[in-house]
């Protein structure tokens, strides 16, 4: 009898469907044409506190002009500006805010009633939430469960969703990526240890589950058609990646080289890689030409992404599909859909989140 070798990777430990102690919203956009609605809930029967960090990675023009509009006459450099704020949620309380507007404590917010369904701001305010610190804002949001004193805890009481709404009302949504806190090992200091073992920085070992070893997505080849919308339609896929490790204290950007392994429907294998710092969002066609339909040759493909061996952080993220259908007069009709990655395996190394120490 022939034994077919079949090694099954270990399951990943991040979650997009369970309450967790760290929530990562990898793609947060406020750029004038799109805004992001953040929803966070406390799934426990006691009050929960969280410390949240926005990281604005929008490019800044070192010179004159606008980087997003392509009119910058100098260099475009990402801002990497971090701002943090705290929120608190009573038992089972949901809350929401828009990234562009934030949310302010306003006791005069009137609740909805049968004659008025416009009541943004009604409810128990979770604290003052700042609006995006600049326009455009493109980056991530990370929320960490803490106790009343601000020390990180492994409560696993938070869940979240993000909905990106464009000015024409089109929307796409994804679940926040959660990292489960581990019982007993969380020492409540400002160094959060994700996965791995005991080290100088992590004397009690992992305090949170680690990130996945790799993330997987099923996607359309770039510029392939979507059978839902006919042969003249095209699909573009935008991938957003963030490193699991981040240093808010020293503001050191995390450098990541991402390796891609892609299989088409013929089982043909393609590989490529792309580097990024801190946060990246890119169309697959911008990462490499192998993702184009002319190269992949089949409509559907499966891509495995992992950090390179020398990269000192795991990765997580989301991907968003742009479905386009040309019409008689431009622009084409467009609709978007976002998906969470599938994760596989658990990183053996520790990823660390350094929180700012404060005054």
């Amino acid at each position, binding site marked *: 009898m022939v034994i*077919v*070798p079949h090694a099954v990777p270990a399951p990943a430990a991040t979650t997009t469907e369970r309450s967790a102690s760290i929530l990562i919203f990898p793609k947060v956009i406020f750029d004038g044409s799109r805004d992001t609605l953040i929803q966070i809930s406390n799934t426990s029967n006691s009050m929960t506190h969280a410390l949240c960090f926005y990281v604005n990675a929008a490019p800044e023009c070192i010179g004159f002009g606008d980087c997003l509009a392509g009119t910058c006459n100098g260099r475009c450099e990402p801002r990497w500006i971090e701002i943090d704020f705290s929120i608190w949620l009573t038992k089972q309380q949901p809350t929401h805010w828009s990234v562009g507007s934030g949310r302010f404590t306003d006791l005069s917010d009137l609740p909805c009633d049968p004659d008025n369904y416009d009541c943004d701001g009604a409810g128990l305010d979770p604290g003052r939430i700042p609006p995006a610190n600049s326009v455009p804002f493109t980056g991530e949001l990370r929320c960490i469960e803490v106790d009343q004193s601000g020390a990180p805890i492994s409560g696993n009481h938070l869940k979240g969703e993000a909905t990106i709404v464009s000015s024409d009302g089109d929307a796409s949504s994804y679940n926040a990526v959660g990292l489960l806190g581990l019982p007993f090992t969380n020492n409540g200091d400002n160094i959060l240890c994700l996965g791995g073992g005991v080290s100088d920085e992590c004397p009690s070992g992992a305090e949170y589950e680690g990130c996945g070893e790799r993330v997987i997505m099923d996607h359309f080849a770039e510029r392939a058609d979507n*059978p839902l919308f006919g*042969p003249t339609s095209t699909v573009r896929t935008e991938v957003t990646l963030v490193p699991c490790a981040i240093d808010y204290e020293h503001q050191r950007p995390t450098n990541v080289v991402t390796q891609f392994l892609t299989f088409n*429907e*013929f089982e043909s294998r393609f590989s490529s890689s792309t580097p990024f710092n801190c946060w990246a969002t890119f169309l697959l066609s911008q990462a490499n030409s192998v993702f184009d339909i002319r190269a992949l040759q089949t409509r*559907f493909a499966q891509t495995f992404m992992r950090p390179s061996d020398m990269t000192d952080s795991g990765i997580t993220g989301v991907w968003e599909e742009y479905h386009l259908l040309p019409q008689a007069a431009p622009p084409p009709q467009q609709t978007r859909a976002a998906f969470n990655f599938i994760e596989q395996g658990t990183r053996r190394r520790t990823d660390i989140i350094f929180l700012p120490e404060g005054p």
Partner: protein
Amino acid sequence: MWNAPWRSLTVHGAVLGLALLTATPRPAPADIASDHPAAILVFPKLLVDTANGLDTLIRISNVSDTSINVFCFYVNVTPQCPLDNGTSCFPDKATCTRPGQEFPGFCRPQWQETDFIIRLTEEQPTGWLVSQGESVNCAFIDGVCSNDGTTQCDIDMDCPPGSRCVQPPCLPLDGGPLGRTGPRGQVNEGAVPLSPEDPFIGELKCIAVDESLAPIARNDLKGEVLIGRLQAGPDMAIDAAGYNAIGIPALVNICQENRTCSLTGTTCTSNLQCAPTNNRDGTLVIGGSGAEYEGCPNILILDHFFDGAVDPLSNNLCEMGTCTISNTMCSDDADCLDNICIGNACSVTGNACISDTDCENTCGPASECTLSGERCVDDDDCTDPTFQTRVVTSLTLVPCTEDFENQNPSLSRTPAQFLVFNEFEQRFSTSIPVECFKEIRLSNIETDQNERSIFSAGVQGTLTGQTRIRGVVNDQNPEVAGRTGNALLGIAEEFRCGGPKYQFPLCNFVDDPARLVGSTSRNLHIQGRRPQSDFIYLP
């Protein structure tokens, strides 16, 4: 239906099961989730109505370097009208009518199962339209050129420069003397049938099996769904919403580094000494005692807008002479909010008009508002018909337990209990029976008057809420006790509807799609496990 084993295939399945026992050590599998590969995939909601441009694209991949057979079951729940020549019951109408008949008929779901099997080669992705299916026939189907969508072609060279030949989805590794195989000689086999009917609403479950159709403990499948709507014609529009398939991982008893079996705790030196928990029969045990697969969740959690809430992010603004959401002509932002007469039609309400006066909602002679139909004494009682984008959420629930052998829906029947919290931390609850499938607007769960529902923003007072959903264990009925755990799985869809302020938003892919501004889907969060097992009974 496949009643006989899939004998035409080369037999690898038996050895694949043994191969798993010799695989490298690994920790216990993850929970039920949509973010990890698994052995069972659940696609809770599929929609087809090609006459109205509605269809569903399913994508499935094998994430392993070994080919895998996938045994799938469509569950057709499209309600049927018992009256000859009665009106359509699609997708979830309660009643139907027939001309000349005074009394309505009551729409009845079918719970009809259709199964099929396909083989995916190593690391292979595939996808198909539910309305069209796919098979190993790429060499025999024509394509059309991507530049015009009508010119027939076989290869890219048949199309003008810059365009290419687009074929319908098919499984490309067809083998054979002139066919194509994978790098290691692997080929696709099997076919996905067309949806059982059109229009169609239902569910899909897919299970990793070997060639003899015996379930196999391989957590190598992942899937996604994209429900899309194409509105053709002068008001062309497209919309899509996607979600990940929910994965139920198989339990695998393996020898760990500490030389104990991961599930049984017995001592071992190799995986061969760890007895498999999956007996590979036609009864799949999901959680509980004797589990072969991870247990279904005890609670589902949904964060959502309360129905009817005004979307704080969707603003209908005037840009370059056109309103961004309603697409009507405008000269300033006020034109995009006010109900004004443009080309003999009111811009928000759509009724015929000669002047802007015809677009005002005033108290008519029969004490009824002219546009909204509200009862009134004077004009102040009539709601302003200004434009708003409001949100409504549809929830789809399917049972973990399904009996494909005896087609017994009573095993899946359970009350779903809902616990609702608003942003004031106030708690509400309600319930609804779920049989094989339930797709419903949140604000129709306990009433057909949406404005009066506890899921209505007007009742709750806040924009968003958190709802906890629990299938009640049916252990009082001796006929089903011990044969089902009554756990539920599901997804939610959020629809943004544009319309006048007085109109409660009821749009979705099927109902009132002209008012649909945008849609999005999401997987539900889960919490806990239950001690009872759920079961999938294979034919």
